């Protein structure tokens, strides 16, 4: 797909956000992603971008998909994360059997959604399953609703839980507040066994570029606002941007964003994907922190739409930046001859 079409997609994301997503005092984090908004996202074709063709996917190329993720993250990281859970995660594990395809179809239209228990190195998951029964206590899951749950059981198998999902919703999670986070309990549920280690494999290895796109979007969203704000905000009768250290910090971030962006846009993105993952996670957190700082007191308030980037960037790093994925970076750079790492 040409970069021209990618640009059109980017524009359509911006238009969609402007038209359909609440902002300011009563922004998206307060309402959450409603069934109605999810419907609209589905209608506009944002939910099935990377689903398999049999599930109604558009067969869009990677470049365009990550461009859309990036663009949503710039404005509302929660929407990007919702798309990610469906397309990058559920799309990958559910496409291998008929029932799964059917569910993906409906999810791609925005009719249902999945919760996903994010695999954690130190997760407090305690689950027990027999042939027909599963009892689990998955404390952290994320997603749109409790229709279906993707999770890893004690023995490392990835399961699709189909009913009796009891969510203890977290009232104010750290980040991505427009999607649901919560502890989950399932008892005597029906489930489908999707194979050993599937979810972990995806989070560790297969979504580097999607993570980069979202982290980059957060960095861009924060820094672009800060660039504009520091032009108009005055202290001591001087625009903030005219203070050298402010200009230096903002332009350094913007420069790094450009470097990551160019690499993500280039055809060598795959070869660089582990590097991009970690560089962008770091960049998102630094950019968002800097942005809150230069917005001063105003940046500290939800209604200004800046502090959410800081929370989301931190959450991104917690979810995607652990020791295990770092080890994959070490291994990539050092080659296969690695011992302890």
């Amino acid at each position: 797909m040409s970069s021209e079409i990618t640009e059109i997609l980017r524009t359509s994301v911006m238009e969609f956000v402007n038209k359909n997503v609440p902002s300011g005092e009563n922004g998206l984090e307060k309402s959450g992603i409603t069934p109605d908004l999810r419907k609209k996202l589905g209608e506009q074709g944002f939910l099935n971008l990377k689903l398999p063709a049999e599930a109604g996917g558009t067969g869009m190329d990677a470049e365009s998909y990550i461009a859309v993720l990036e663009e949503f993250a710039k404005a509302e990281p929660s929407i990007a994360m919702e798309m990610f859970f469906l397309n990058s995660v559920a799309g990958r594990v559910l496409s291998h059997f008929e029932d799964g395809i059917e569910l993906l179809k409906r999810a791609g239209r925005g009719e249902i959604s999945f919760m996903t228990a994010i695999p954690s190195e130190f997760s407090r998951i305690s689950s027990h399953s027999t042939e027909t029964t599963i009892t689990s206590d998955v404390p952290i899951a994320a997603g749109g609703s409790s229709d279906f749950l993707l999770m890893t059981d004690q023995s490392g198998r990835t399961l699709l839980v189909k009913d009796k999902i009891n969510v203890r919703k977290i009232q104010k999670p750290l980040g991505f507040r427009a999607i649901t986070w919560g502890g989950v309990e399932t008892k005597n549920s029906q489930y489908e066994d999707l194979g050993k280690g599937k979810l972990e494999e995806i989070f560790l290895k297969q979504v580097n570029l999607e993570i980069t796109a979202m982290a980059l979007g957060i960095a861009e969203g924060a820094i672009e606002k800060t660039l504009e704000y520091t032009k108009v905000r005055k202290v001591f009768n001087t625009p903030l941007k005219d203070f050298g250290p402010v200009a230096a910090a903002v332009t350094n971030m913007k420069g790094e964003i450009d470097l990551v962006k160019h690499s993500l846009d280039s055809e060598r993105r795959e070869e660089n994907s582990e590097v991009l993952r970690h560089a962008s996670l770091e960049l998102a957190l630094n950019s968002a922190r800097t942005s809150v700082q230069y917005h001063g007191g105003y940046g500290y308030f939800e209604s200004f739409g800046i502090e959410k980037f800081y929370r989301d960037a931190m959450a991104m790093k917690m979810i995607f930046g652990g020791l295990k994925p770092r080890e994959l970076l070490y291994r990539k750079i050092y080659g296969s001859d690695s011992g302890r790492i």
Partner: protein
Amino acid sequence: MDFKFSEEHEEFRKKVREFGKKEFTKQRIRDSDINEKYPDELRELTYKNGLVSYDDPWKVLISIEELCSIDPGLGISVTIPYFGAEVIMLFGSDHLKEKYLSRINSGKAIMGLAVTEPSGGSDVAGASTRAEKKDGHYVVNGSKMFISNGNLADFFITLVRTSSKEAKRHHGLSVLVVDTNSKGFSANKLTGKLGVRSTTTSEILFENLEVPEENLVGEEGKGFYYIMTFFNISRIFVAAQGIGVAQGAFDRAMDLVKSRGEEYSSREEVQFALAEMATRIKATRLMTYEAASHLFSYEPIPSLTSMAKQYAGETAVFVTEKALEIAGIDGIDSDLERFFRDAKILEIWEGTSEIEKLIIARNMLKGEKP
């Protein structure tokens, strides 16, 4: 040289700690944070237990530190009702001391400091709230922004412009004590803060508000100096907040690391993170204590105070971020995520980190030795 607190202060620290552990219940912490609710009952309890005492500024510092390490939001909430008191202590008339400070000292009133305006957080000298003299009163018009205790305080130490000579920005400012039950006072609580959500932050408005002349603090035209002097005091206490936030986050991270067992705790990445956190905390403590020791013996070193404040804010942010990295996904609904949200304000209030650095450099360029 002697780097130890006195036995009395160590005893006091223990007492504060025990109080905090008992009274800062999970319920109180969550409720205040999620609902942005000021814990007034806890404030009274803290006062009654003698944990905030102006007899000894070291004790104030210790209280702030210890309580913030248990919960920054509540810790700040219960120690902030006296915010600005030093302005009256140092520069106020006996009348003002008796009328206002006695209510503060008995824990019956809440006060606040109204300096920042919507147009500029760091630019104190640019204040534009006006006070004009008329028939034995000052008539005040203007607004103040991001004012702590805005909807709670009984009175405010308020920076106003009493001279119209714009050329002399610093010299046209004065300080008034403004009662909040005066006609013409209003306050809008600002909600949706990133952190320290149990504190109350407001925009406050003065509309032809009359203040009796005797509520002028010190002399007319010296307001900028009084406020700057105050900031050199309050920054020490912000640094103490930073110590508390960072120490609290560190302790939790340490517990987490230990709970994950030997294989995890022996990883060098994890040990490096712990070492870097602990080193920053130690450095913060020492700079804060030295700055405090000068200040509390009436020989403040402004550049050192600013070093402590700036470094403490940066450390609180650094340590809470590192701690959440260690926590990973499990941290998304944890004490640590609250510490992280609470930390950031320390780089902003009482002079942003940027302002502190300028203060450090400018004082040193003038020859000050921190």
